[in-house]
């Protein structure tokens, strides 16, 4: 070996030794050092105010199905590619100010969307209320507030004073209504452990809660909660004129430590259902709509969680009514192609809004979510799969999801949805065949 070669090997060996030594000192896992844990008391000091929230970025890719009724209804005058991109950004801010028994809380939501329709931005006050807490038994809230009544995970037929949640993402915060509400709690000994009463006033006037129902009315809602023989129970009612009277009950109970059952039952008096036949004739029917939900939550020893819910929507459309609606849209589209007139499609859009266009407009649904916590010992990682099916027409959406929360205050989620069904079925006629989205949310 030449001197140069020997020197090169020696240099390489020396370099390796230095790097190895440095690694030995600096790259050891922290557990190799004696543990020192710190807990600074300033971290727990209570401040009279709080500001926080999250910022989120959520790009979505839609795979369009151009043969479906809803594609024809939404895109009839556009020529889109096979896929559509959408970019969403959300800033949700919340702040509170507390002094003595008084607390002011505000939550705002700003959505920015860039889609095939262009750019759009909207800021909404989701919640903003003043809370008085004269004792641990009594709370009085005045302002915009979401109440979120009911025990169901995907649906809540008894949530008479809430906006409907999206079963595809049931944990999203929602916009509340302007209310005056109180909570009175009483704890007892014996099988009846807790009673709480929540009366709520909902004024509906022009520019105040005008999406709630008929204006110039003051509505009264109420909830009686009982913890009775280890079972949560609520009796709920709403009356006052903006909506027809409605009442319901719900319950939730652990059968064993890892097996929970829950249910809801609701009656909406004099519900008016508007529907359309395949020729475009409009009908209206009035009846007492009875809705109910039965569900379980089950956790296995391997930390797999199953949430299963059956929902019977008394205000929903039958399979034949849904078929008639989709047939009418197809007829309207054919008419548009033949004549160039979109009059019938506009009629279709009108009956869709708030009616057939509701998140789940049909009669019977099944929801199943299976999530596995930290599989393969990957901490903070939760894969899951969610299926929502219209039982009557056997159409469904299936959504696999990966969630990672390992970085402090950062939540990363990737979700896909496959939407499928026969022609003239609910999911078979959705405008998308599939959807893929990535959500990055940073809390501060």
């Amino acid at each position, binding site marked *: 070996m030449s001197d140069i070669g020997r020197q090169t090997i020696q240099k390489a060996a020396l370099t390796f030794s230095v790097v190895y030594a440095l690694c030995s000192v600096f790259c050891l896992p922290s557990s190799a050092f004696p543990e020192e844990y710190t807990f600074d008391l300033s971290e727990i000091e209570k401040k009279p105010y709080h500001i926080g929230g999250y910022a989120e970025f959520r790009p979505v890719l839609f795979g369009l199905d151009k043969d479906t009724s809803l594609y024809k209804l939404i895109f009839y005058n556009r020529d889109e590619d096979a896929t559509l991109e959408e970019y969403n950004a959300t800033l949700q801010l919340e702040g509170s100010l*507390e002094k003595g028994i008084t607390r002011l809380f505000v939550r705002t939501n700003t959505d920015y969307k860039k889609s095939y329709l262009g750019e759009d931005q909207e800021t909404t006050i989701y919640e903003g209320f003043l809370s008085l*807490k004269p004792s641990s038994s009594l709370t009085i809230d005045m302002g915009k507030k979401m109440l979120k009544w009911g025990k169901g*995970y995907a649906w809540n037929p008894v949530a008479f004073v809430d906006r409907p949640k999206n079963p595809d993402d049931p944990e999203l915060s929602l916009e509340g209504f302007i209310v005056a509400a109180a909570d009175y709690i009483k704890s007892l000994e014996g099988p009846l452990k807790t009673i*709480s009463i929540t009366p709520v006033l909902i004024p509906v006037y022009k520019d105040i809660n005008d999406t709630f129902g008929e204006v110039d009315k003051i509505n009264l809602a109420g909830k009686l909660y009982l913890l009775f023989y280890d079972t949560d129970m609520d009796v709920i009612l709403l009356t006052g004129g903006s909506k027809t009277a409605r009442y319901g009950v719900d319950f939730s109970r652990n059968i064993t430590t890892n097996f929970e059952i829950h249910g809801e039952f609701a009656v909406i008096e004099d519900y008016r259902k508007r529907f359309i036949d395949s020729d475009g004739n409009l009908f209206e029917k009035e009846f007492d709509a009875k809705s109910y939900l039965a569900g379980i939550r089950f956790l296995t020893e391997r930390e797999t*969680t199953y949430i299963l819910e059956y929902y019977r929507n008394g205000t929903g459309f039958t399979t034949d009514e849904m078929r008639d609606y989709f047939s009418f849209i197809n007829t309207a589209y054919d008419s548009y192609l033949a004549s160039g007139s979109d009059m019938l499609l506009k009629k279709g859009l009108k009956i869709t809004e708030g009616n057939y266009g509701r998140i789940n407009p049909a009669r019977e649904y099944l929801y199943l979510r299976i999530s596995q*916590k930290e599989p393969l010992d990957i901490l903070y990682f939760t894969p899951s799969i969610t299926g929502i099916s219209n039982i009557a027409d056997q159409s469904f959406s299936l959504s696999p999801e990966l969630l990672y929360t390992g970085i402090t205050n950062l*939540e990363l989620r990737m979700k896909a949805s496959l939407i499928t069904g026969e022609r003239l079925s609910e999911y078979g006629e959705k405008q998308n065949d599939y959807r893929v989205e990535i959500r990055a949310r940073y809390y501060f």
Partner: protein
Amino acid sequence: MFKIIITFIFLFYAIPVHAIDGAELLKQVDRNLNPESYESYRKLINIEPDGSKKEYTLFTVKRGVDKVAFLFLAPASEKGRSSLRLGDNMWLYIPNVGKPIRTTSLQSIVGGVFNNADILQLDYAAEYNVEQTEERGDEYLLHLKAKTKTVAYDRVKMWVDKNKRVPTKIECLTEALMLIKTLYFKEIKDFGGGIVRPSVIETDSPLYKGYKSVMILAKIKKREFKDEVFTLTFMPNLESLR
């Protein structure tokens, strides 16, 4: 002769201690760990095999033998979440979801080795019977058996410091005596008000090889609360107790 001495030493070492009332000792351990009703501030740290950490700060309140609740103060992603335990019933309140949902003792709100039952720990004497007490040098070893099937761990082995009457180590086991996790109680600290107890609890588990979780107690003091605090309706308002 040597064999006789060894046998004698072994018998002396392992024989159950009849002079010690195990149930009474367990009650003393409970009271030395916490007053029956108290408020406390804790930090949970999950440590991954590569050394990376995730921390959670909790405000905890407890009343009597079966009522306990905590509120997340940090990190921002968890702030405002709270959990309530009334005996065997457990609920989790997530501000966005807006209503408490039932949860179970085996689930873990924070991920890592600590589960809900570890964080919302009731008195050991409320959940376990002492089956056997052994004397092991400077320590007692208590063999505990869950009173009901709803308790998170069917069997628990608790090593108790003879003088200070606080645990030094706890092994949590299944009915088939499979080890689920081990808790190590460290760094005894005087918190004032007569509370002298370990301020750090480390835990590891053969089910989470290489992972470790640590609970640090910064503040604990006796405080009385009304029963109404421990209700579903009050869960969104736990912050008002601070």
